[in-house]
């Protein structure tokens, strides 16, 4: 009788311990995954985007600028991006002040047109979308937020930059199940919400610039993802409107340094 009681106590203790351990393990699975999982999710998103041959998406973005007074101003914009690899890209933008512009790459030239000013700039750019994105942003000095995500090598671009990634939680607060990750590069802290499912697409991204005064943020929400848009060729053809004027890219102008008292600098100075 005494032996049976002892055995029952031991069994009960083991069951309690097992249930506590199991509950803890399940909670850990739910609340926080290992760092390797977080990195795999991030790079999986990059690989999926990079392998997608055609896509269109609407990006509603906002970013902060810190004024001289220290006060932040939030600027808003909406971009619709249509991509057809290897060498077609169109980005239509509308800023919060009503300015509309379009960027078109047709495999030979990249053109950008400002509708309110009725001016456009154009540069020869043979090659694919990847080279063109780098040329447009780095060499022509133009804005194209989150350009990295639309390269075919998005995964390797992210892998090279990202120093740490952590899993925050699984959430459905944005409308569809998503993995919420945080991470950092050398100079940027980021958060990303990636759809949980067959198509690991970004739902939302927040970038924070910690070294900049006021630590401004860039925030973007993605919607209307279409991975089979079948765009017409005309979408990637830029025909300047009749009344539009062609102007150079500012980055392509020779650098000009005015002399003292407004005296012109020597001609032909190049950067």
């Amino acid at each position: 009788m005494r032996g049976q009681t002892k055995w029952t106590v031991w069994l009960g203790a083991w069951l309690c311990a097992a249930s506590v351990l199991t509950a803890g393990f399940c909670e850990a699975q739910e609340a926080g995954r290992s760092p390797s999982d977080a990195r795999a999710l991030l790079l999986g998103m990059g690989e999926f985007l990079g392998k997608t041959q055609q896509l269109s998406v609407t990006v509603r973005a906002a970013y902060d600028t810190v004024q001289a007074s220290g006060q932040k101003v939030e600027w808003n914009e909406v971009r619709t991006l249509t991509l057809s690899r290897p060498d077609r890209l169109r980005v239509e933008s509308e800023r919060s002040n009503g300015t509309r512009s379009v960027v078109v790459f047709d495999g030979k030239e990249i053109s950008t047109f400002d509708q309110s000013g009725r001016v456009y700039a154009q540069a020869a750019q043979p090659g694919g979308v990847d080279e063109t994105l780098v040329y447009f942003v780095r060499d022509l000095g133009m804005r194209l937020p989150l350009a990295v995500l639309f390269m075919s090598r998005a995964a390797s671009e992210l892998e090279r930059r990202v120093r740490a990634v952590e899993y925050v939680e699984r959430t459905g607060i944005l409308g569809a199940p998503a993995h919420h990750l945080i991470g950092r590069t050398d100079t940027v802290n980021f958060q990303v919400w990636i759809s949980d499912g067959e198509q690991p697409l970004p739902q939302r991204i927040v970038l924070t610039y910690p070294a900049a005064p006021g630590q401004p943020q860039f925030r973007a929400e993605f919607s209307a993802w279409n991975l089979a848009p079948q765009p017409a060729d005309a979408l990637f053809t830029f025909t300047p409107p009749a009344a539009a004027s062609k102007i150079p890219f500012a980055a392509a102008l020779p650098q000009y340094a005015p002399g003292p008292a407004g005296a012109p600098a020597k001609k032909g100075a190049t950067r």
Partner: protein
Amino acid sequence: MRSRSWFAACATVLAFTLLGTVTNDARAQRGGARGGRPGGQGGGFSSEGPAASGAFSSRSGSAAAQGAQTRASGGRASAQESRASAQGTAGQNQAARQEARAGAQAGRQQAYEDEHWDEGKGLAIAATGAVVGRAAGAMTSATATSAATPPPPPAAAPCSNPTLVPVGGVTYSQCGSTWYTQAYGASGPVYVQSAPPPGS
């Protein structure tokens, strides 16, 4: 007598109150003028900054510092190189070493820029004093775009009545003795201070 004292006290309080109101109004007006005066960017508010790039790299962090350091190092190397060449043959070897070091630093800087191509170099160009007119016009800090938002006015001229001189497909604007060219900047058309047109 007592009523006179009360009257004087009330009048004094009223006078101070009115004076305070006028002073506050003046401050408010000055503040309003500051807020509304174009400051080279739309609406007097700057719309340029590190976050505008939406990039996974930023020049505000180590990149800008590294660039400045590299440029400074390059300058120091050049100065040292000049001193070394004046010291004869032994100095020439030192100058060659300095030159090689400066070249290596420039190479590293180039490699850094290749790797962090999205960090918003164009915004740095836009931030230079050479850019005077934002084509976007008065940009507001509205929280959302709307189909009803009226389009902004076209690019503001660099001065009220510039002399326009078209040369070789480029229109130069002259304001006094200063010349400008319209160009496409990071976020739209801008006026950039330029050299005079050829032949002027």
